[in-house]
């Protein structure tokens, strides 16, 4: 299964097993349409009807607002922004409403919604490719997850839909692996077996994708794949990297990262989000607080620069962290 298919499968199972689950977003259920911007919901309106796969007006604020209201009234909405960048049109509903209502009610209402955000640069320019993690990790009350494989995508989406909290669910466009005319040209190809049955991956866990002894590389989404490629190249240099996929940013399993750093004494964080104030800054700060004395080298971050996302492929390549940048930055941790 591709990640797009895995996500679809998760939604299908969630809807089959719980009649209160429904989907809302733009172009997600139109007959003869796309199944959202990236084919993820294709066919679901045929299966579950337009009452449960709701094509909304272009009204991001109302999409999230309606999800908040539906969640507080006993449903489990899965809302989609066509591109993650449009969430800024709905930010009040995310930050001031969804995230806070459980607390503001003193625990008397829950807001079990999922907000799916396709993120990542894909040659569409500054308003169609931002990685927006850290706006949400900074907002108490939101869970924030970001799978890097189809297997995780399915299990985490099922867990997210069944979680009683608002969950921001980030999906990287180049990992969808969609088919046909809507496939992203720079897609990462990988095969993972995705079981067809109903399984959940508990939110709040990281996954150690590669074990190593010399440097800990923490990355998410597309960057996990680049970090793994980098690790192979580093290995040729005699550096064995441990690659940790932070598929859940909130809650964050900082313990596993800390333990890894205790072992490797070196930490490199890789993210596609902008450097300043990205989630990597928090991982660095937590490490500087908890594991400072284990470190043999500065904590470094490889991130997108503090510029808006440029469109041209040649510029995007400069912007998005590359395998080469990861390799050279990791190597620099071993400079005498």
């Amino acid at each position: 299964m591709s990640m797009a298919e895995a996500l679809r499968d998760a939604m299908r199972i969630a809807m089959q097993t719980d009649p209160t689950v429904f989907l809302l977003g733009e172009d997600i259920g139109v007959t003869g349409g796309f199944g959202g911007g990236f084919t993820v919901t294709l066919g679901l309106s045929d299966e579950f009807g337009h009452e449960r796969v709701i094509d909304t007006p272009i009204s991001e604020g109302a999409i999230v607002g309606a999800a908040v209201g539906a969640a507080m009234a006993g449903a489990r909405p899965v809302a989609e922004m066509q591109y993650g960048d449009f969430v800024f049109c709905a930010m009040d509903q995310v930050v001031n409403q969804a995230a806070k209502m459980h607390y503001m009610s003193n625990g008397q209402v829950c807001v079990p919604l999922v907000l799916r955000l396709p993120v990542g640069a894909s040659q569409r320019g500054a308003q169609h490719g931002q990685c927006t993690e850290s706006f949400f990790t900074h907002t108490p009350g939101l869970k924030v997850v970001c799978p890097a494989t189809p297997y995780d995508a399915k299990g985490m989406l099922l867990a997210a839909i069944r979680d009683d909290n608002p969950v921001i669910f980030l999906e990287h466009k180049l990992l969808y692996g969609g088919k046909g005319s809507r496939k992203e040209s720079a897609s990462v190809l990988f095969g993972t077996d995705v079981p067809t049955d109903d399984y959940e991956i508990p939110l709040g866990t990281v996954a150690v994708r590669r074990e190593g002894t010399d440097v800990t590389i923490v990355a998410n989404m597309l960057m996990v794949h680049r970090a793994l490629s980098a690790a192979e190249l580093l290995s040729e240099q005699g550096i064995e990297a441990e690659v940790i996929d932070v598929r859940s940013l909130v809650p964050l399993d900082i313990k596993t990262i800390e333990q890894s750093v205790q072992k490797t004494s070196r930490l490199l964080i890789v993210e596609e989000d902008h450097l300043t104030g990205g989630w990597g800054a928090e991982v660095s700060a937590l490490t500087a607080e908890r594991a400072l004395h284990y470190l043999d080298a500065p904590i470094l971050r490889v991130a997108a620069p503090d510029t808006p996302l440029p469109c041209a492929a040649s510029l995007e390549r400069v912007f998005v962290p590359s395998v080469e940048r990861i390799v050279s930055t990791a190597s620099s941790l071993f400079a005498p």
Partner: protein
Amino acid sequence: MTIQETISTEWRLAAFRQMSLIRRYEEHLYLLFLQGLVPGTLHQCQGQEAVAVGICSTLRRDDLIYSTHRPVGHLIAKGASLKAITAEIWGKATGCVGGKGGQMHLADFSVGAMVSNAIVGANIPIATGSAMAFKLQGLDRVAVSFFGDGASNIGAFHEGLNLAAVQNAPVIFVCENNLYAASTRISSTTRITDIADRAQAYGMPGHSIDGMDVEAVYRSALEAVERARQGRGPTLLEYKTYRYRGHSRGDPCGYRGNDEHQSWIDRDPIERLRTRLVADLGVAVDRLATIEQECQREIEAAVEFALASPEPTAASCFEHVFA
């Protein structure tokens, strides 16, 4: 109150009681505020009681209301615990949301009063979403969103009403047009006079109604609520009303004139109902006075309860971030 087509004296007496409770509660708080005894902020609804009471009298307990920064009237009319909301205003552990909310964030989930919202207009798509969930679940419950004239200019109004209309959601949009958004007169923030006219932009029925007449509010609300309950979609109801006191604590209302103010007090909804009950329907003046005294006692008991209640524990600050 029970739902009925012809308005009975009994209904009117109940409405009188609720409006009096709201008015007296707010005035009592105001006096305490003047003495410096009310913590936090304060947004009061004196003058607007008929809207809250007329609307909520048409609702069932399991219908949901979403109120605003000015929530007391709506909450009382929906039957919320006076003690719990008072304790909340005083930031006590016994407050309806444990002191986390304060005056702008009152709730009583046992009667369908959701946490009132202090982001102007934000409850409009939220109420729409609740209504969509009712429809999805095949329930005949309705949701009500209260908001002001000022809120009708924010994007959430537009998106929420349009979505509700296309989804045929069982929601009622109640715009309390008290002519001002904080200090700003409606005429300087929109070129139209009747907010109800905006309903056309969504293919939704919209009505502009006298908000100082609780019976008119009741009748219009009854129609909208029945319509929603029967699956015939949302309605925008605009009520012309007036807030007698300032926008929030310490507002001397320098931006509006005494004549205007007086002209609305002359149409006071409680006094109008009193006249109707006494002059037209032969209810004894004393009976109304007794009701008012009962309200006053309830209010005093609520304030006593609040003052005597404990502060929330420090630990509770960290509770309920996640479910």
